[in-house]
């Protein structure tokens, strides 16, 4: 108030400076944003919310530790089962780390969240709870908390606040309803979820205040609803105990394991296994398909699958040098599934089928890949000798492990009994051998060269010595020649001097030649040239001496 008054009295800029954001960012503040501008205020709120999440997380952790400590303290029935569960978890984890070293973190996170949610889940379910462990409100796992926040963020695009709250409340209400109807057959639960999606989408279309939303925004909101609900209910809906999903998971896993002898050639994939780039892409695709299991909402699972399929397309492109069609893609996906043998594959497929928004599965890109995955699973389940163009007898023998299929003809250097790593090792050993041979040859050549050089040198020296022997150096013409030569032939001097820089044998040879020339010259004409040999001859003498 006083600021306002002062502002009106003193002029505009005092007023402005007082109305600016407290953070000093230059924008105007607003009392309803505690004196900050909208942006700074949002940052501050977000920070405090983040802090809240972190403290929640810590609280959940503490509870978990408490629970674990209690279990350890009293090794009762519950403690025993707890440790047993842990054992099986670690087994799973081992398997996953075996497949993907880099994915361990997400996997761990998943299991951590699972165990933390069992903390909050167990008190309500089996009654024998620890009273101090149950808080007033159910503690959400960090993932759930995160999606709740994301959902609330997503609701911001709804203009009417009341409507946003209504949406949030109905989602919340639906989650409670689902939590209380876990005993229903899974088909009914699936129907309930689908009905909820439909009613939500209808509401978005019909609600008067939602009219301003574009189709895109509506879709975005529906995605948010789907993600929120499925993440929160993942625990209940994924591989529920009322179905036989777990047995079927194990059965499928065993089945895929027993088919591990199937080669890409049998499936007509045309994957070039020996290409290192293809191998890298194969590993990436396998990692992505395994990651499907570590996500909570169908969307996230599907986006992992999409990533996997993109890697497959890429590796087919590398293998074929052309973009792949469905005729090549499906076999490749089957092969990747076979190689990856993702844990809980059946449960994941069922979960997505039951609880993803049907419109997504029916038409979109993710739906296409998911359909292909379903085909791959169906194919692997019903795989028989005919499908691999093998005789029934062969097929049975491979299945029972009695025999191992021979490696295809085009890959003749490695025998069929080896795994990928061994083949790679063999190839590397072969490469090393080749390098070794090359190296040996190089060394031999070098030695030969050395010998040749030595021989050449010896030869030259011998030649010189022979020449020297035949025409012993006489120093007699030295004085007259030297005196006469200098004024007369500088060119010849140059000629003789330059070889001397090259190396002594040559110089010596040149010198010797010069000497012989000189002697000839001397015989025929009394010319000054004989001088030159003298200059060199001293060097030659040195050379021979050394």
């Amino acid at each position: 108030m006083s600021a306002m008054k002062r502002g009106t009295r003193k002029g505009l800029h005092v007023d402005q400076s007082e109305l600016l954001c407290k953070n000093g960012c230059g924008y105007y503040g607003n009392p309803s944003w505690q004196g900050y501008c909208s942006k700074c205020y949002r940052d501050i709120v977000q920070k405090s919310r983040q802090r809240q999440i972190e403290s929640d997380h810590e609280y959940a952790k503490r509870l978990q530790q408490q629970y674990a400590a209690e279990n350890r303290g009293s090794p009762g029935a519950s403690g025993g089962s707890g440790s047993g569960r842990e054992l099986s978890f670690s087994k799973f984890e081992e398997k996953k780390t075996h497949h993907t070293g880099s994915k361990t973190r997400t996997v761990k996170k998943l299991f951590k969240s699972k165990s933390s949610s069992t903390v909050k889940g167990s008190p309500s379910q089996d009654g024998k709870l620890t009273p101090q462990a149950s808080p007033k409100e159910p503690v959400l796992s960090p993932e759930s908390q995160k999606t709740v926040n994301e959902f609330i963020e997503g609701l911001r695009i709804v203009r009417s606040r009341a409507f946003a709250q209504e949406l949030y409340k109905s989602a919340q209400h639906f989650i409670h309803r689902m939590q209380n109807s876990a005993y229903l057959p899974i088909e009914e639960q699936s129907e309930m979820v689908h009905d909820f999606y439909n009613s939500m989408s209808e509401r978005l279309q019909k609600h008067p205040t939602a009219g301003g939303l574009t189709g895109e925004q509506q879709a975005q909101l529906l995605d948010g609803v789907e993600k929120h609900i499925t993440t929160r209910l993942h625990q209940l809906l994924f591989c529920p105990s009322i179905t036989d999903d777990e047995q079927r998971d194990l059965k499928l896993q065993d089945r895929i394991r027993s088919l591990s002898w199937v080669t890409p050639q049998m499936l007509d994939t045309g994957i070039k296994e020996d290409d290192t780039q293809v191998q890298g892409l194969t590993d990436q695709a396998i990692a992505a398909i395994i990651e499907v299991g570590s996500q909570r909402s169908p969307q996230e699972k599907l986006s992992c699958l999409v990533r996997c399929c993109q890697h497959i397309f890429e590796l087919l492109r590398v293998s074929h040098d052309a973009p792949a069609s469905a005729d090549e893609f499906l076999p490749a996906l089957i092969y990747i599934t076979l190689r990856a043998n993702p844990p809980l594959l059946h449960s994941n497929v069922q979960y997505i089928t039951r609880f993803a928004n049907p419109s997504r599965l029916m038409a979109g890109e993710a739906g296409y890949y998911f359909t292909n995955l379903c085909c791959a699973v169906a194919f692997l389940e019903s795989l028989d000798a005919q499908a691999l163009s093998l005789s029934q007898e062969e097929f049975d023998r491979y299945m029972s492990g009695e025999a191992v299929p021979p490696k295809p003809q085009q890959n003749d250097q490695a025998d069929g009994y080896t795994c990928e790593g061994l083949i790679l090792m063999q190839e590397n050993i072969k490469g090393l051998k080749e390098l070794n041979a090359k190296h040996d040859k190089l060394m031999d050549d070098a030695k030969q060269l050395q010998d040749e050089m030595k021989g050449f040198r010896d030869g030259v020296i011998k030649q010189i010595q022979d020449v020297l022997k035949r025409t012993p150096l006489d120093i007699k013409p030295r004085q007259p020649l030297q005196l006469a030569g200098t004024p007369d032939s500088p060119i010849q001097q140059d000629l003789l001097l330059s070889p001397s820089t090259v190396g002594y044998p040559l110089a010596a040879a040149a010198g010797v030649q010069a000497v012989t020339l000189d002697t000839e010259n001397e015989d025929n004409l009394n010319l000054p040239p004989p001088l030159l040999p003298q200059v060199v001859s001293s060097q030659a003498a040195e050379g021979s001496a050394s």
Partner: protein
Amino acid sequence: MAGSRVDCKVVLLGKAYGGKTSLVERYLHDRFNAEMPYQNTIGAAFGAKRVEVDGKIVTLGIWDTAGSERYEAMSKIYYRGAKAAVVCYDLTDDGSFERAKFWVKELNDNEEACRVYLCGTKLDLVQENRKARRVDYHMTTDYADEIHAEVIETSSKTGFNVCELFEKVAEGFARDPANKQTVQICSSVPQYPSTSLSKDAENFQVTEQGRSRGGCCS
């Protein structure tokens, strides 16, 4: 995720190497086989394309399927929920038309809501050499009348009739009263009555042209 919203699921069925993939390639990226560098796309198995019909936007999701007989048992999974099916046959291969009949039967048995379009491929080969034709045009039209389907002969190499085929599919979808709601929901473009009329007329022209062209060369 691009193309995650799709109104109309279109499955391509047909014998392996019957020209399905080339058809998608031509329609989505307007190219044929090796004539363009491939770096831009990773695969042609799935594609989404927006088509305008009567002033409304229809997004077609085109699903290529594996044609090998090995995966025949799984084809049910593919065409579940499809609004339209393009059953391809190779004009130079009478066996492929027999396979097409098989798929038509499957579709009629399992997916009643699915509209069927018979698509003869590799028309360019037949035009080059009339003797190469193994599938008679009148025979296919008679068959199509029998199963209430439409026939269109295309060439992915020249691009002839390819767009027309998918326009037909989109029109068939958009004008089907059963799909009225879906189309309206998903069209994010505001509708102006005056322009929608003119676009309607335009569209008609295109298809009429396509049809007449299709007739003359067969």
